[in-house]
């Protein structure tokens, strides 16, 4: 096999040197009857050409642009990705190396993570950030667990407009830990959390978890919410599923959030059907020893030369075992690097410009759609690049009609909110030209008119 250097001859020779005659002698500690009598029942090996053709045929069975136009968002966003991102993460030194346990020959990875931590702090307005977590949903779960460790309280309040899949993940994580989650009802009109609704928080609440922009695209009044939450001695966890919004919106850290976590996919990471992505996690310095996951810090060698190392390891499973702040080990290193490269390339002005284009295009689309007979914006809160449209026809039907025109109009909210039969979650990023927005609007108009005519 071409991935195995030693030839059959060499292997035989190496066996002989050890005084063995058959490979099987090496497996003598496995009870004979447990050994496979015949080969695994898998397809025979494919040549490189055959494998490539097979995967091409699979890939061809997924619809992507230009075959379809898509207005899907809802936690996974189609943003511009600079070509250099892939060129740089394709350096063997980055993608074929392990977690940087040996700093003297891992400074490339370590320094890049240190830069990632810094950028996340800058974007979120927090003081410390870790090296990454699996994704936005698990980052939120880790935030809840950390809040419990800090407050020793066992209840969390999660806004009803947080990404439904994120909430499902938290449910899974906390149930064994004996933490209970309650849903914080949001305003039917604005679609956002009303600070007032938090005025009488009970004393056993460890944390209130909100998402901004929320699942419906609406921007929360984090500042006001933070005040209420802190009054009750609870922590405020702000989740950011669309990190691009940080380029434009007031950083949660500046609004009083105690933990800001979320998904960095928007920063140069391909959609790839939902993964791999990159969870980020930031908090206050005073909580740094409670942070889950890897942390990289500055260090010096004997001659006073600066370098970087994995640090505060006493939080981690390999040292603390069952007392660790988390069980995470392998995280999303290479994807944190992608995000770092993206943020460096776009930089101060690029992230801002991209964020503004998202807002402008989404609002243009919203204006056009809202102007159509029978369509309206479901919520009134200000939004970033996503908004909910109430359609004259059931959303599913509307989407089917759009699909006939090779347009994926958005996400039918009934999927998560059965009562929202008519509602469609529409996302417009900077990658969608005006012409495509106009196609969507025109198609919706036709579908709408079909009813009244």
């Amino acid at each position, binding site marked *: 096999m071409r991935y195995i250097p030693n030839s059959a001859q060499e292997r035989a020779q190496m066996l002989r040197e050890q005084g063995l005659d058959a490979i099987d002698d090496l497996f003598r500690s496995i009870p004979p009857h447990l050994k496979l009598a015949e080969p695994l*029942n898998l397809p025979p090996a494919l040549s490189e050409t055959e494998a490539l053709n*097979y995967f091409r045929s699979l890939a061809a069975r997924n619809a992507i642009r230009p075959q379809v136009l898509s207005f899907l968002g809802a936690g996974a966003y189609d943003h511009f990705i600079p070509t250099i991102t892939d060129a740089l993460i394709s350096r063997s030194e980055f993608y074929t*190396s392990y977690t940087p346990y040996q700093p003297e020959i891992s400074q490339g990875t370590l320094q890049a993570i240190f830069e990632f931590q810094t950028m996340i702090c800058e974007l979120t307005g927090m003081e410390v950030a870790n090296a990454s977590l*699996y994704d936005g949903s698990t980052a939120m779960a880790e935030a809840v667990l950390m809040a419990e460790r800090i407050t020793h309280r066992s209840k969390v309040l999660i806004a009803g407009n947080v990404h439904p899949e994120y909430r499902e993940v938290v449910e899974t994580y906390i149930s064994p830990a004996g933490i209970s989650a309650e849903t914080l009802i949001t305003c039917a009109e604005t679609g956002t959390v009303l600070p007032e609704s938090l005025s009488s928080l009970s004393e056993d609440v460890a944390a209130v978890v909100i998402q901004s922009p929320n699942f419906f695209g609406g921007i929360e009044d984090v500042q006001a919410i933070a005040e209420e939450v802190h009054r009750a001695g609870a922590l405020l966890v702000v989740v950011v599923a669309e990190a691009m919004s940080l380029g434009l919106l007031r950083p949660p850290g500046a609004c009083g959030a105690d933990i800001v976590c979320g998904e960095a996919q928007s920063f140069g990471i391909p959609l790839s059907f*939902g993964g791999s992505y990159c969870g980020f996690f930031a908090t206050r310095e005073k909580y740094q020893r409670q942070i889950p996951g890897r942390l990289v*810090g500055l260090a010096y060698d004997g001659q006073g030369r600066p370098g970087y190392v994995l640090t505060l390891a006493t939080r981690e499973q390999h040292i603390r*075992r069952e007392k660790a702040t988390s069980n995470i080990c392998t995280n999303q290193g290479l994807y944190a690097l992608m995000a770092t490269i993206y943020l460096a390339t776009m930089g*101060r002005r690029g992230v801002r410009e991209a964020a503004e284009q998202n807002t402008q295009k989404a609002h243009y689309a919203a204006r056009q759609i809202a102007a159509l007979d029978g369509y309206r914006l479901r919520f009134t809160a200000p939004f970033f690049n996503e908004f909910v449209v109430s359609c004259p026809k059931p959303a599913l039907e509307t989407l089917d009609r759009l699909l006939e025109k090779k347009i994926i109009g958005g996400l039918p909210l009934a999927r998560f909110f059965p009562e929202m039969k008519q509602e469609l979650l529409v996302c417009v990023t900077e990658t969608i*030209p005006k012409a495509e927005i106009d196609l969507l609007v025109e198609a919706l108009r036709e579908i709408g008119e079909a009813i009244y005519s």
Partner: protein
Amino acid sequence: MNRKATTHVNQNEGLIFERSRPGRIGYRLPALDVEAAPIPELIEPSLLRDDDLAGLPEVSEVDVVRHFTRLSTWNYAVDYGMYPLGSCTMKYNPKLNERVARLEGFAAAHPYLPEALAQGNLELIKELEECLAEITGLAAVSLQPAAGAQGELAGLMIIRKCLQSRGGPRKRVLIPDSAHGTNPASAAICGYQVQTIKSNSRGAIDLEDLRQTVDEEVAALMLTNPSTLGLFEENIEEVCRIIHAAGSFVYMDGANMNALVGVARPGDMGVDVIHLNLHKTFSTPHGGGGPGAGPIAVTAELEPYLPFPRVVRETGPQGENRLRLDYHRPQSIGRVRAFYGNFSVLVRALCYILSLGPDGLREATETAVLNANYLAHHLKSDYELAYDSQLMHEVILSDKRQQRFGVHTLDIAKRLIDYGFHPMTIYFPLIVPGAMMIEPTESEGREELDLFIEAMRSIAREARERPELVKNAPHHTRIGRLNEAEAARRPVLRWKKEQKQENQG
């Protein structure tokens, strides 16, 4: 300098923030093509950031390319040479997998594509599940867990959920003292007390001891097989029998499956749940710390508890085969992450499995085990073997013989760097004092193994004759040993404008 490596000129590079200069630009977006309204008219100013993102750098594309290219040259990599981290299975990452994972149809597919428009991805997921079920000898597989540790957590939750349905979740999880730290950590998150069980003198589970310890409060035994000592649990069947007899489950940490694929199947041994590390056994790149993927395989009894959604095959109205996502899984533990898993990793793993086929997979396993035994055979004269039993995919040595010269495992590891190798895993497993855990994998050819042996022997000699040389290693890297203790005492976890990271020498 030595046969494996020498030194060569290498570029310095500061932090990207230090490269930043006002007005530099690294990107170009298409001009905005819709009529723009002033942002404050769209979103209240109070909700907008007012720091102008000053904290992000301003650099050109050239700056970014130079910066990260230079950084990369400071790393060691599998593509440079042997990367013998024990229990990490640092095998070759095929370039074909990288190419395939980048096909637009995969990379640009949105997770919420209508199922009819994502049949290729669903097929890929289902096919990989089926391959892994066959490889592990278990009934069903979920690809959702993002890494091994999350696989452990999901697996334990499944056991917990099942036990609950039988009356109660129980209290304890048994974990051998040789286990990886994620095992107890996962058990704890899953709400279990961890009871450590001692390995016997041969590094195996003591059956008597096990019989004593197991009771109806034990939810599961978490067993790594082969263990982190590189040994196959010879009594695996009896162990499973004992555990099952008590109504509890056997969870197998499959991180070391590179020693078994194509040779023996955990399912056949009586294991109930196992996680696999696709970023180990199945050649997906470690990426300097992820992403990985930690699929779990379970018995038919436990299948209903797997995370949702599940990809299921069905026949459509026109009798065509198609796949869909099944969210209606009443007994499921729920989700462990958003969407369907680290899909881009799954693509690579399937490409690996299909490229090797049944024979190639077995050949890889056999060669990995052969290479490890070859190392043990040639190193035991200079280093203490932790256990002199039949080894599988890795060998554990200790610094016992070197200690008397004041040379310790850490020193030996650092000195290996001067010889052009990445060090082995050190001080793990915890039960072996000064452990050096060496896993060559099948990706190493004989010459590279011989160079490693030569280096280790030379270091053993240096330890006797010039201990200081070893204790102050590495000598040939761009920086020396870093003061990690100090770094943890006063952690500096981010760059700040004020504080320039200056040479303190």
